[in-house]
């Protein structure tokens, strides 16, 4: 709109209006410029440049991040210039993102128009700055999400991909992390003498930090598993090594249940290191195998006891993490008694079906609510005589 081309000579009112329009146009243009970029330093550079050019200031600067345009004296730079005009950039939540400070020529006061313009500029810059900050966060979030995705693939690849086939037994495992990666661990190792070593473990905490401890636990476990140690010795060494890693590791202690199956003799060797009771059902009894010592890595010099258990045909074993007992229906916890019941109900089903059945009982209880903890279980069943 070209106001100077108006047919009649402008009176005082229309002159004021004309000025007003020009100022609004300047502010509109300034707004367009500060919104033209999504990078925070450039948004602020643009705004400082506009303040200097449009209002013929000596200089302008932003406090955070420090951005300067034109001439800004040292005392202003050091932020102790109390008399310099300042315009805060306010975020939507009212917090101050940064401050615009201008340096008028010769230290004169700002005119009403200049103050109006700078307030408008600060408002527009605040919106653009907040968008830029959010954009930066989105970029960083996307990078973190890619990282976590890669971490999840690695953690899943570290789970046993195939269960060893042992004549007369069925073995199955399942692990679901609550977040992208988790602090639960399970492993099944076939030892040199043919016995099967099984571990289910739970690192204190959840998420990435616990997942890191998990991989370090796995390496230690796998290295020691090759040394044909007794289970109580294996647990004691793992615990001492973990403890010696320092205070942060001690807080991220590991509860673990270890089982060694000698398939030929049908004997189990078991050590429970501060882990949830292991469930055992044999034709003769239903019982739990409770902890004989504190969790791995929590206290120095911890000793454990090995339990030897006869595992005749028709026997079943369930190792699990507390994610299975701490499933909630409103405020009510599923608990270990219900878990034992759900396990007992599976009868003589093979191991894979045992886990499917337990999981579906848990889902029914929680009403298929999203899980709140990592959930891991291993089931070992010995088939009845005459059933291959």
């Amino acid at each position: 709109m070209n106001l100077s081309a108006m047919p009649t000579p402008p009176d005082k009112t229309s002159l004021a209006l004309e000025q007003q329009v020009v100022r609004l146009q300047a502010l509109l243009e300034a707004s367009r410029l500060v919104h033209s970029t999504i990078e925070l330093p450039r948004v602020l550079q643009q705004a400082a440049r506009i303040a200097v050019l449009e209002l013929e200031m000596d200089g302008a600067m932003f406090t955070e991040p420090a951005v300067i345009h034109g001439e800004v004296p040292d005392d202003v730079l050091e932020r102790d210039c109390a008399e310099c005009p300042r315009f805060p950039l306010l975020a939507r939540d009212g917090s101050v993102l940064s401050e615009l400070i201008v340096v008028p020529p010769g230290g004169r006061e700002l005119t009403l128009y200049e103050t109006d313009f700078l307030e408008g500029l600060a408002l527009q810059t605040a919106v653009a700055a907040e968008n830029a900050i959010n954009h930066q966060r989105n970029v960083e979030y996307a990078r973190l999400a890619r990282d976590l995705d890669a971490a999840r693939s690695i953690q899943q690849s570290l789970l046993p991909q195939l269960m060893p086939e042992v004549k007369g037994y069925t073995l199955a495992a399942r692990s679901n992390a609550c977040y992208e990666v988790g602090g639960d661990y399970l492993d099944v190792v076939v030892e040199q003498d043919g016995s099967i070593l099984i571990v289910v473990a739970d690192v204190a905490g959840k998420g990435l930090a616990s997942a890191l401890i998990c991989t370090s636990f796995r390496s230690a476990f796998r290295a020691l598993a090759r040394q044909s140690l007794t289970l109580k010795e294996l647990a004691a060494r793992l615990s001492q090594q973990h403890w010696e890693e320092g205070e942060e590791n001690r807080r991220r202690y590991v509860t673990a249940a270890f089982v060694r199956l000698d398939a030929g003799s049908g004997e189990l060797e078991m050590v429970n290191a501060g882990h949830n009771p292991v469930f055992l059902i044999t034709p003769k009894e239903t019982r739990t195998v409770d902890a004989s010592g504190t969790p791995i890595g929590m206290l120095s010099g911890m000793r454990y006891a090995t339990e030897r258990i006869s595992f005749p045909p028709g026997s079943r074993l369930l190792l699990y993490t507390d994610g299975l007992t701490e499933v909630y229906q409103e405020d009510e916890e599923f608990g270990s008694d219900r878990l034992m019941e759900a396990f007992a109900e599976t009868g003589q089903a093979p191991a894979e079906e045992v886990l499917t059945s337990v999981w579906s009982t848990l889902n029914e209880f929680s009403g298929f609510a999203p899980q709140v903890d990592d959930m891991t279980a291993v089931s070992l069943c010995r088939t009845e005589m005459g059933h291959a």
Partner: protein
Amino acid sequence: MSMKFKTRQVDGVNVLDLSGKITLGEGSVTLRDAVRDLLSKGQNKILLNLADVNYIDSSGIGELVSAFTTVKNSGGELKLLHLTKKVKDLLQITKLYTVFDVKDDEAAAVSSFTS
């Protein structure tokens, strides 16, 4: 609600009345700082009253153990008082019940500290 605590002295023993949750990143740091603060003042007889601790997770258990060993290494004693069912269950599962000195009566707990 995260954890809150009040400290009082009974016959030279520092009783910490804890309430709320001791969980990762919330109560656990509060507890750690409270114990460190007492130790820095030379106070190493500590009784943690857990009567109003309605929830504790694995990180909270780790923090209790960490407080226990820190106090022990400084030549002091840390005992537990009035466990709720949840805390007691977790200490039993993890076999820690035998590690801690657990009390049910405050007066008896206070007098059990070596003078």
